[in-house]
């Protein structure tokens, strides 16, 4: 148990360039993931995000096998997945099964690619559970570029996207291109998911793409406040999780997921305590 929470070497490790890279990556990822998370939750896209992450894993595994940049592979995998989900499954019920089918096949391929790969086994495991060592200078540039792209897109589509995500029928009636926006949003989610995969791992992408939004939506109905709170939770989880993981030398994702979960429970508790007061405060 002592190994789980030890800080003896933390300060020393914080001086290492690879740690600093990882912290910058986490801070940037926290902003974009937090921006998208409340909308992901409003749109009921948790399963789609999970599916996208698994296909980012497949893309990364394929890249590993053929000797390409893993980050590039996961971006391609995630964007392909997001596009498939965006095009095929606009109806919520259908979307669910489409994601299940595509994800199963994608995971199968990923497992195949990994078993064919005979390089370092740490690379294999890293894709699934994440690792801060995987963040290098190139990753930071990719991360920065994608972040700028996501921010610029959100600046343009932000209002119609909120309309389409929270009130789709009336948005459609008011002439919002709901279908096109659903695709745009799916691609944004795909990009951010792909960035999160190397850091927190494919199986724990949910902890940065869903948990902050689910927690924030519990305590505020203001779209702006929900977004700010989601960013804050994502930041605390990612940056805090990274720092805590340093000395024990354990995967970042375990700490990120735990902090996110605690934040979610706290938000539920706050909502519950407030719920005892009259609802229409």
């Amino acid at each position, binding site marked *: 148990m002592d190994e789980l929470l030890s800080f003896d070497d933390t300060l020393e490790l914080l001086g290492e360039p690879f740690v600093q890279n990882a912290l910058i990556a986490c801070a940037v990822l926290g902003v974009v993931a937090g921006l998208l998370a*409340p909308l992901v*939750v*409003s749109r009921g896209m948790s399963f789609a995000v999970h599916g996208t992450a698994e296909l980012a894993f497949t893309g990364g595994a394929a890249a590993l096998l053929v000797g390409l940049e893993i980050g590039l592979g996961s971006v391609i995998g995630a964007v392909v997945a997001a596009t498939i989900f965006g095009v095929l499954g606009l109806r919520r019920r259908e979307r669910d099964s489409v994601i299940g089918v595509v994800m199963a096949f994608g995971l199968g391929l990923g497992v195949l690619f990994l078993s064919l790969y005979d390089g370092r086994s740490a690379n294999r495991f890293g894709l699934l559970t994440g690792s801060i060592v995987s963040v290098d200078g190139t990753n930071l540039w990719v991360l920065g570029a994608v972040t700028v792209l996501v921010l610029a897109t959100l*600046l*343009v*589509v*932000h*209002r*119609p996207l*909120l*309309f389409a995500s*929270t*009130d789709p*029928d*009336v*948005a*459609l*009636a*008011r*002439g*919002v291109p709901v279908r096109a926006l659903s695709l745009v949003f799916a691609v944004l989610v795909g990009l951010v998911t792909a960035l999160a995969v190397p850091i927190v791992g494919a199986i724990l992408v949910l902890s940065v793409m869903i948990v902050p939004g689910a927690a*924030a*939506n*519990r305590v*505020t*109905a*203001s*779209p702006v406040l*929900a977004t700010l709170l989601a960013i804050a939770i994502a930041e605390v989880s990612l940056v805090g999780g990274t720092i805590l993981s340093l000395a024990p030398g354990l995967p970042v994702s375990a700490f990120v997921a735990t902090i996110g979960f605690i934040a979610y429970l706290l938000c539920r508790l706050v909502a519950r305590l407030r719920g005892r007061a009259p*609802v*229409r*405060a």
Partner: protein
Amino acid sequence: MSQTAAPPALSLRGAGLRFGDRTLWSGLDLDVSPGEFVAVLGPNGSGKTTLIRVLLGLLPLSEGEVRVAGHVPRRGSPEIGYVPQQQPLDPDLPLRGRDLVGLGLDGHRFGPGWLRERRTRRERVDRALEQVGGTRYAGAPVGRLSGGEQQRLRIAQALVGDPAVLLCDEPLLSLDLSHQRTVTRLIDERRRAADSAVLFVTHEINPVLPLVDRVLYLVDGRFRIGPTSEVMTSEVLSELYRTEVDVLRVRDRLVVVGAEEHDHHEAPGPRDVLAVGGGA
């Protein structure tokens, strides 16, 4: 029946709509004056909602012309207010009452425009909320409001752009009687105060009976337009449904009997017998 010389708020000329070889309706001529209330009735699948979609600028006519406030309708036009039927909303939806109303004003607009005009935007949203008596729940999560409160906000959402025409698509569905009254009262107040024309799609004429100036009744491509007393008769409805239909007046309500076997049974609800008893 305020038929004046003012240009119509909404006009259809020889309008027709076809999907493949199926004609929903054709040769439809309709002028709705400012301040006029027109109820659109008919069984499921007769093209009532499709007519709304045409007027919203979402669907082009197969033939004929359509004008709303003098223009060909386009997506997101501020001249058109749209009130949908009440729908269940997720209680954790991150949207407050004032956000829902604000989206009616500029939710369709791209770009970072919220930085400009922030103040006027806020004032307009406040005014719309006030008009429907919704100021109290401006800050409440919309998903936690009752159906009636949500519909009040829906009306504010439709009014916030100061529309010349209100298109209402079954706004009373699944509301209880007192909320039905509130919603119809608010719509009526608006058309009197601002002379907005109202096109009101409903399967249930009774809740709006006192407001209705004219009725457009659609059945399988056949239709009839006229004052309630001329359209809602046994003869006219029998002709439209091509079967024997009786329209009875029970106190101040209309009861239609016999249209049921021609209904399309697409959705549950009292579509065949219009309001026997307490309504809804």
